[in-house]
C-alpha cells in the first residue's frame, strides 16, 4: 500500500477538511435511458408493479395506523420504492437479508404474502412473526429475511456473523450465498457499523452493506451527523470498496447491488453500497416532519421514484395508460385483500405468552403472569417446558 508523500518525517493522509454539502447523486441522464431500453418491457413493468404495490401498501398502512389498527411505531418506505425493488431484484433467494425497522417493502419483494405482512402490523397471529414483532420486526425463515431490527445498527453485527457462517461452511463462487445488510444513513455513525465492517474486511466475508441514504435520520441531516457525508467512502477505514448509486433509479440500484453481491460471493470481498433517495414523509407515521423546509419536501416530491418511473414508462411506450391503471388497481386490490386478511385474523391467545420462552426447554422456568407467584402459575403450569 503506497504511502502518500509527506513532510520530511511525517506522512499525511489526504483527507483534509472540506466543506460538507448535501448528497450529490451520480448523474444518471442519458445513461439511464440507455439502460432502461436494454431492459425487457416485462422486467421494467415487473419492477414498476412492485414499486406500486409498496406504495399502496405503505399508504394503506399509514391509514390503518391512523385508525389504530396498527400500534407502536410504523416506518414507511415511501420515496424509497426504487431502492427497495432494485436491491431485492439483485438479491437471490439463497441470499440472506438483514434490515431495519423500515422494511415492509423488502418483505413484500422477498415474496412474502402481503396479507401476512399486514397481519403482522395488526399484531395478529397470522402475521409473519406471529404478532410478536410488529412493523419493526418482520421475519421469515423461508424468505431468508432474517429480521427487521429496531435498535439502530443492531442488525449489522448479526448480519456480519451470518456471512461468517456462510464462509465457515461453503466455498466462494458465483453460486455461493451472500448476505445483504441494510441500514440508514444515520446508522453509519454508530460503533457497530465500524466494528462490523472491520470484521468483514479482515475475515473476507460475503456481505454487502447497503446504506439507504434518504438524507435524514429522523430530523438530522447527513451533513449534520456525519464527518464524511459521502457515505459510500466510509469503507475507507477497512479497505472496503464503496459505490454510490441513484436510489431513485431501480435498474441502476439493481445493477450496482448485483455487482457488489458478485464481489462478495466470488471474491469474498465485502462491499459498501450507498443508495441515495429521499423520504417522502416523516420519520414514522406520527411524525409531521415540521423540521423540513418546504423546498426540501418539494425536492423529495420531484424525485418521487414511482411517479417518475410511471412517466418514463408511459413516455417510452413500455406502458400505456390502461396498463398503468391496471397496475395500480391490482396493487390496490392486493392491499385491500391484505387488510381484509389481517382484519379477519385472530389475535394471539394469552396461552401463547410463554410459548417462545426458550428453544430448548429447561426446568424451573414455569413463567408467571403479573399477578402470579414465581412459584407456579395456572397458565404456566399447563404449558411449562413446552418450548417450541
Amino acid at each position, binding site marked *: 500500500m503506497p504511502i502518500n508523500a509527506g513532510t520530511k518525517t511525517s506522512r499525511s493522509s489526504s483527507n483534509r477538511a472540506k466543506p460538507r454539502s448535501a448528497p450529490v447523486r451520480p448523474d444518471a441522464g442519458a445513461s439511464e435511458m440507455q439502460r432502461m431500453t436494454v431492459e425487457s418491457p416485462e422486467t421494467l413493468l415487473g419492477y414498476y408493479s412492485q414499486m406500486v404495490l409498496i406504495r399502496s401498501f405503505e399508504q394503506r398502512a399509514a391509514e390503518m395506523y391512523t385508525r389504530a389498527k396498527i*400500534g*407502536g*411505531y410504523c416506518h414507511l418506505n415511501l420515496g424509497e420504492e426504487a431502492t427497495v425493488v432494485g436491491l431485492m431484484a439483485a438479491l437471490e433467494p439463497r441470499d440472506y437479508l438483514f434490515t431495519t425497522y423500515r422494511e415492509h417493502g423488502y418483505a413484500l419483494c422477498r415474496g412474502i404474502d402481503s396479507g401476512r405482512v399486514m397481519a403482522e402490523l395488526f*399484531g*395478529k*397471529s397470522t402475521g409473519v*412473526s406471529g*404478532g*410478536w*414483532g*410488529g412493523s*419493526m*420486526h418482520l421475519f421469515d425463515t423461508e424468505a431468508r429475511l432474517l429480521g427487521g*431490527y*429496531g*435498535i*439502530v*445498527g*443492531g442488525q449489522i453485527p448479526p448480519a456480519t456473523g451470518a456471512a461468517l457462517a456462510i464462509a465457515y461452511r461453503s466455498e466462494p463462487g458465483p453460486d455461493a450465498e451472500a448476505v445483504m445488510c441494510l441500514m440508514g444513513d*444515520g*446508522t453509519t*455513525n*454508530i*460503533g457497530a457499523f465500524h466494528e462490523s465492517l472491520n470484521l468483514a474486511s479482515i475475515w473476507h466475508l460475503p456481505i454487502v452493506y447497503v446504506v439507504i441514504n434518504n438524507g435524514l*435520520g*429522523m*430530523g*438530522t441531516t447527513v451533513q*449534520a*451527523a*456525519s464527518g464524511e457525508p459521502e457515505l459510500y467512502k466510509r469503507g475507507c477505514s477497512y479497505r472496503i470498496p464503496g459505490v454510490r448509486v441513484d436510489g431513485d433509479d431501480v435498474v441502476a440500484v439493481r445493477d450496482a447491488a448485483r455487482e457488489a453481491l458478485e464481489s462478495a460471493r466470488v471474491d469474498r470481498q465485502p462491499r459498501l453500497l450507498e443508495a441515495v433517495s429521499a423520504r417522502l414523509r416523516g420519520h414514522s407515521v406520527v411524525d409531521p416532519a415540521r*423540521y423540513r423546509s418546504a423546498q426540501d419536501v418539494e425536492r423529495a416530491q420531484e424525485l418521487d421514484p414511482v411517479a417518475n418511473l410511471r412517466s418514463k414508462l408511459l413516455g417510452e411506450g413500455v406502458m400505456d395508460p390502461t396498463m398503468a391503471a391496471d397496475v395500480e388497481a391490482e396493487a390496490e386490490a392486493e392491499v385491500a385483500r391484505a387488510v381484509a386478511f389481517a382484519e379477519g385474523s385472530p*389475535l*394471539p*391467545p*394469552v396461552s*401463547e*405468552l*410463554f410459548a*417462545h*420462552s426458550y428453544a430448548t426447554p429447561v426446568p424451573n*422456568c414455569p*413463567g*408467571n*403472569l*403479573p*399477578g402470579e*407467584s*414465581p*412459584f*407456579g402459575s395456572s397458565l404456566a403450569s399447563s404449558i411449562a417446558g413446552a418450548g417450541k
Partner: protein
Amino acid sequence: MPGNEAGSAVTEMTYRQALHDTLRAEMLRDESVFLIGEEIGIFEGSYKITAGLLEEFGPRRVRDTPISEEGFVGAAIGAAMLGLRPVVELMTINFSLLAIDQIVNHAAKIHAMFGGQIAVPMVIRTPGGGGQQLGATHSQNIEVYYAHIPGLKVVAPSTPADAKGLLASAIRDSDPVLLVENLALYNTKGQVPEGEHLTEIGRAAVAREGSDVTVVAYSHTVGIALDVATRLQAEGISVEVVDLRSLRPLDRSTVCASVRKTTRAVVIEDDWLSYGVGAEVVATIQEGAFYSLDAPVRRVAAAEVPLPYSKSLESAALPDARDLVKVIRETLDATGFAASGDRCA
C-alpha cells in the same frame, strides 16, 4: 404530599411540562448547564420535552448528536469532568445499553477510582416503559441495572412535582444521576410548586397513608397503586403507598417503617420479576421488618418474556391494577404461621 412544600404556590401542569420548564429554568440559572442528545434540537425531542429550547438557547446549549450513544454519553462525562453540567437525553432507556460501558465503567467509577480528585456532575434523562406496543427491544424498564451500581444515583419521579424537584436536584448534584422517566407519565397532570423546588435525592415518600397493607411502587406504578388504594378504600381496605422516588440510594427506612406499621406489603413494578427492583425491596423489608411481617411480601411485575408486540399478549404480560388488587387480597387473606402455607413445591 410529596414534592409540595407547605405554603408555596402551585400550578397544574403535565409531567412533560414540568421537565421542560425545569430544564429551561436550570439553563437560565447556570451557564454551565447544557443539553445533549439525539433529536433534542431541530426535532424538539422524541417526546418533545426539549421543545423550543434550541430556539431559545441556540446550538451551543442544546446540542443535537448523531446516533452515537456511547460517544455522546461519554462526551458528556468528559465535559462534566471539566466542570460543565451536561444533561443528556437518551431517547429511551433501551438505548442506554449502547452507552452502558460509559455509564457504569466510567461515569460511576471516575470519582472513586481516581481517589476522589474529580467529580462527574451529569444527568442522564431517559424514559422507560412498556404498554405502547413498541415491541421487545423498545419497551424495557432496566433502571435496576443502574440502581445496582455504586457511584451512580438513580431517581424515578412519579409526579410532575417530583419531576421538577428531582430533575433540579439532579442537575445541581455533583454526581452522575440517572433520571428515569416513563412514556406513560408524560401526559399525566399534577400540582407543581412554583419557583425553586428541590426534591432531595435518596428519600422515598409516603404517597398515601394507610394501615392494612403497604404497596411499594415507583415511577409509573405509583399511579396504579394510588388508583387501587382508592378503589379498595371503598371496601374498607386501607392501603399505604410508598413511592420510592430514589432507587439509589434506596430509602430503606421509609419502606420498612411503613411495613412495620401495616405488617404486610406488596411491591409493584413494570419490570420483569426476577432480579428486578422489587427483589431488592422485598429483601430490604424482610430484613428490616421481619418480625413485624404477617404475610410474605409478594411482587407484582411483568411476565418474564421479551415483551410481545401484539396488544393481546402485551396486556397480559404487563402488570395492572387488577393484578395488584388480586395480590393485595391474597396478601391480606394470608393468615397464621403455618409452615404448610409455604408455596414452595
